[in-house]
């Protein structure tokens, strides 16, 4: 493997991490919004959120990304591949995060919320200081797990011609006729990314415990 091969790994790692990171940043608040819609039992919107989550969760990453990248230009919206990848992963992350938030909302004791209401706290204060700290704490493991899932699904971006770690490894293997070494190197990069995420989870958990929320 020459210098350019290593460089392509760096590019690949950047796009893998970039896509997963943006998807998480978009997916956490949107997922929370959807979960709150279902939690508040708003008639039509709650059902819509349920349908959205059910369909998107069962759609493979490859299919969704091809739908966005090849399908939308039929309506005159042509996207650059990277943007298409960001949109498709954000859609998936929103659906998965909605389920994670929802399970911690189900575990949350509604009577606390009603007590806050009885004390005359405004809707925002109730959300920010009563609800959010508790559901945030219980959904951290799920959210980190979802991030590792996103990283593991990121090779799907190679179907629309983007360079990610897996595709970089495969291309180098096809050129040098030695597929195993680049694949192992790619695997090592994934291990590092996943380890970093697990480390992040530990950090967040100890910080929350020491803050004593």
């Amino acid at each position: 493997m020459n210098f350019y091969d290593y460089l392509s790994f760096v590019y690949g790692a950047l796009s893998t991490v970039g896509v997963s990171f943006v998807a998480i940043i978009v997916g956490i608040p949107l997922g929370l919004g959807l979960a709150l819609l279902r939690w508040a039992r708003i008639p039509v919107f709650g059902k819509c959120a349920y349908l959205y989550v059910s369909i998107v969760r069962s759609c493979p990453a490859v299919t969704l990304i091809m739908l966005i990248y090849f399908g939308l230009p039929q309506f005159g919206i042509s996207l650059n591949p990277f943007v298409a990848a960001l949109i498709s992963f954000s859609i998936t992350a929103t659906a998965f995060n909605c389920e994670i938030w929802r399970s911690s909302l189900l575990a949350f004791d509604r009577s606390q919320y009603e007590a806050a209401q009885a004390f005359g706290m405004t809707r925002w204060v109730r959300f920010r200081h009563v609800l959010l700290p508790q559901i945030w704490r219980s959904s951290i493991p799920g959210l980190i797990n979802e991030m590792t899932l996103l990283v593991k699904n990121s090779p799907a971006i190679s179907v629309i011609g983007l360079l990610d770690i897996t595709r970089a490894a495969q291309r180098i293997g096809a050129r040098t006729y030695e597929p195993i070494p680049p694949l192992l190197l790619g695997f090592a990069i994934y291990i590092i990314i996943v380890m970093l995420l697990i480390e992040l989870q530990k950090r967040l958990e100890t910080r929350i415990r020491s803050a004593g929320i």
Partner: protein
Amino acid sequence: MNLTDFQIIYDERETIYQGIEATLSLVFISGVVSVFVGLVLTPLFFSKVSWLRKAVEWLCSAMRCSPFLLFVYVIYFGLPSYGINFDKYTSGLVALIVYHSAYMAIILRSAWVDIPADILEAGTAYGFRGAAMIRRIIGPLLLMRSIPMVGNQWIQIIKDSAYLGIISVVDITAAFNSIQSIYFNPFVCFIVAGLMYWLLCLLIEFIVNGVAHYARERIA
């Protein structure tokens, strides 16, 4: 997007049947086999032979860190350099089975740890030990307790099977991709493909709920 797009999909149904057949057979075979392999791997987590235990733990955490597509490439492009050649369908199937067996083993292990100790003690008191204990007492309990998680993993298998289009196995996604590349109706094609995956997942959910209902009365 108009009706003729759907008409085209109907006219090309032969290709789609092929895709559905490939996806269904891949998912069914690997779904069943990976549960059995998982059942074989799980006791090794508690083995007294330390290298065996280490090997299984290492295998499972390696699979957890690796993306499925990377693993498919290892099987499809990597193994031939060691003289092991599979065709594309078989390498897809092997990849699905090996990759998801590791996940099944992890799922079953966590269910194993959760089995109440008194049931195991009662089993020992009735003279069960070793293989008979696993087959008669732990095994059924393990399967019934872990069925919701196993169902989630089956859904993951369905989603991962779409990656096999990249090594040109004609599954549902690849079938619709080939249709849209001829007729230029990508939106309808991929929407229909997505809905097919959705129906498949609903079917799995339905089956899992049925089994979970049956299991609930029996899991102690």
